[in-house]
């Protein structure tokens, strides 16, 4: 019968370890064994996107992975976006544009948006809509999230030294 497995991985730049059954979902492992409750569970069937994290640099749904699969991986969760008290430009943009209400989808939304910007750093509003359709929000109607992602993307490009078009 399944024995607990040791897992060593990097989360938000820090070496972490934990121990759990093979069936333990990665999202539960993050929340319970590692105490990182910022990543939320909305459905457990990979549809709502609230559980989205960065797995080796790409967004993935942590409710559809087992913790054991993250052995040796580098993860970034919402807790790893800010630098101390300084918000990530995308978090700041969400704040300024009122892109969150209850905040439950927000961690997943931030990660999914940032992931989308990796493949399309200067998206149009329609492209943003398509990009963030990976995560469900029930409160905002997405209008302000689209504005925030546009502004956040611009802020990130400025930080990276790219001129605005």
């Amino acid at each position, binding site marked *: 019968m399944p024995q607990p497995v040791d897992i060593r991985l990097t989360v938000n730049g820090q070496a972490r370890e934990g121990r759990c059954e093979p069936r333990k979902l990665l999202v539960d492992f993050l929340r319970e064994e590692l105490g990182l409750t910022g990543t939320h569970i*909305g459905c457990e069937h990979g549809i709502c996107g609230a559980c989205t994290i960065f797995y080796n640099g790409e967004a993935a749904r942590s409710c559809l992975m087992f913790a054991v699969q993250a052995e040796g991986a580098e993860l970034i969760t919402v807790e790893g976006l800010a630098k101390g008290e300084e918000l990530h430009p995308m978090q700041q943009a969400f704040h300024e544009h009122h892109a969150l209400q209850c*905040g439950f989808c927000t961690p997943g939304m931030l990660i999914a948006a940032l992931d989308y910007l990796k493949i399309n750093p200067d998206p149009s509003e329609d492209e943003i809509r398509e990009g963030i359709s990976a995560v469900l929000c*029930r409160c905002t*109607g997405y209008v302000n999230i689209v504005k925030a992602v546009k502004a956040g993307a611009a802020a990130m490009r400025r930080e990276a030294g790219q001129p605005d078009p």
Partner: protein
Amino acid sequence: MSEGRAPHIGRSLLRREDRRLLTGRGQFIADLELPRMLHAAFVRSPVAHARIRAVDLSVAAAVPGVALALGGAHLVQELPPLPDTQLSLPSKWTSHVEHEFHNPQQPGLAHDKVRHVGEAIAVIVAESRYAAEDAAALVSLDLDALPAVVSAEAALAPNAPLIHDHLRTNMFGAFSITKGNVNSAMAGAPHRLQRRFYHHRYAAMPIECRGVAALYEPRTDAITIWSATQVVHWVRREVAAILGMPEARVRCVALDVGGGFGVKGHVYPEDLVIPFLARRLGRPVRWIEDRHEHLLSAAHSRDQLHEVEAGFDDDGRILALRDKFILDCGAWNPIGGGVPYNTAAHLAGPYKIENLAVSARTAATNKVPNTAYRGAGRPEAVFAMERIIDLVAGELGLEPAEVRRRNMIRPDAMPYRAGILYRDGEPIVYDSGNYPAGLQQALDAIGGVEAFRRRQREMRREGRYLGLGIGCYVEGTGVGPFEGATVRIDPSGRVYVSSGASSQGQGMETIFAQIVADAWRVAPDDVVITLADTAAIPAGSGTFASRSTVTLSAAIHHASERVREKAFAIAGNLLECAPDDLELRDGGVGVVGVPGATVSLAKVAQAARPGWDHGRPPGIDAGLEETRYWEPQTVTWSYAAHAAIVDVDPETGRVAIDKYVIAHDCGVVVNPLLVEGQIAGGTAQGIGGVLLEELPYDSEGQLLAGSLADYLVPTAGDVPDMTMVHQHTPSPLTRLGFPGGGAGGGVARPAALANAICDALSPFGVEFNQTPIKPEQIVKAVRPARPSPRPSPRARGEGGTRAAGG
């Protein structure tokens, strides 16, 4: 962000809630860790209707890690259900409105029968949720299946199988209201039309499901409950009653809540079972609902079937309106008649209808119970009324906007007595608003009707079908019975406010900080808000029905007045002047016209303390705190007009929303940014309700939407950009002029979209009088008919195909 002296009401302050939520430091119920906490999982009925013969928990109980396996038969002995208590209607209403209601109390776990798929039959408590589910899978149920009742009409037919045998009926409730004389007005009307409208079953579907945790403290014989709820005081009251504990020993707190929209607005069996288990086991117990459970056991909504008859004249003026409707309530009726009565009260909307008769029946069926969701009965009313207006326009060959204008209550008729009662028992009086102007604003914002009609004709020549739809509504907001606020000046000088209101994303911490900052002339950062905690205030109603801003601001003001009087008396004592010479300024109290003569609120609070060497003048008691309960006389009325332009692809049936405009009047707005956010969210929910979301049941009572793969919540790709225009007619009824604003978009969206789709497809002569309106239905409706070369002449009810629900 502290903003100095400027008034804060009316400004789009950024939210103080954001930082923790953005950085993953919010605390939702699933984030709550308690030492030695156990985890619960419920065993839920796989069938819709059955007698429970036996529940065998023996194998489950023996699973390692299981602390307890409990079935309904045992629970009902230890925790007998309360008598019918959930329903509360004021006597002003019950003595005037013809009605009948039954409200059987749902036990914590089903013990005699199961009445819907998903109803809880047993609970397992174990060291982890994983282990609890392992054990739950080993529970064996011996159920005698009974025929399932899956339609409200079938439920009310003679000899229908009874859901609640002791009631001898499946009719949970009925009421009727009348105004004027419908029979004679209808008989005398030059034109009449009749239609059936069906507004289907869908639900709030917040991204956070439900959750309850409880901790029993033997030292004090007290219990704390954390619940993702909108109604902490209600939960506290019922837990205290059912556990036989004084309310003072029961505390209920809502932490961060991930969306409510009504579905978290009443007391569920789990809210009672989990605290019971915590006390029984002597260890904290937590239950987190998963999405599948949520679909099967958290309340559904809408699901109303209306038979409407309208009598009207040649000008399209509605002379008489009769509506008989049935609400499919599911297996239990936890919030009684509130929702259907809202439907009746809002049916006439912004229109002058002198003769009105509405009768409603609420039917029990073998489905998940039906309660309030964003709008709570209003969208159903608006759908029926707004479709009727368009149908009247169609019969007469008039523009729907024009028929609305002809029927609307004019601004000079305000305040307008509608002639029926609200559910608080008070006569409905629309206090303020300019409905025609709001409609015009919406139409202007989409570019005007004439310009649209030109574009529509051009597009039709190219084989493209654009449509314009309008939805107008009024909303009674800020309903009682009451809301409370405690205002206290903290010795640090901050203003502390607590209330039973709770936030599920509406930004109340920010809104109330703005209100209090203005009331006390302090910076918003110097306001401390505690919400959703029964320990912070003895009584509260909770957040639902767009009520919190209105009612709580009034309560804050009344409490503040009393505290201010005291503060001035004490400050006067400290400054050696008359209280009348004082004013609030800059976080303190100062002498009018003498800039230097101030004393800080901190000093005043310290001086207010009991004990030796206090700073109070004689006759002034210690303490600088007041709790006041505001019992609103009645509701205030906000108003909105929605206009939508859709592009319908008749080959696939896809509906694209080309433009969407909301003209909204909710009076004085505390924080425009937050109000717009509410409108946008409500609008997205309305789109989902019309085009995407459904909770269909098969003939055996199985719910066919078991996951979010089936229940289609709109994504960003499904919700267009929106244009919002605002009117700000202050309500004369509320202290600060705030009507309530929350339900916003959700109420009118289904109607506006349905009207737009019908308008787009008018060459095909189709009508859509039920929701959802799905692509397949559109294709079916247009396929047999070929579009006529000219737009159909809007024949008088004859000819054309009536597609669905007609």
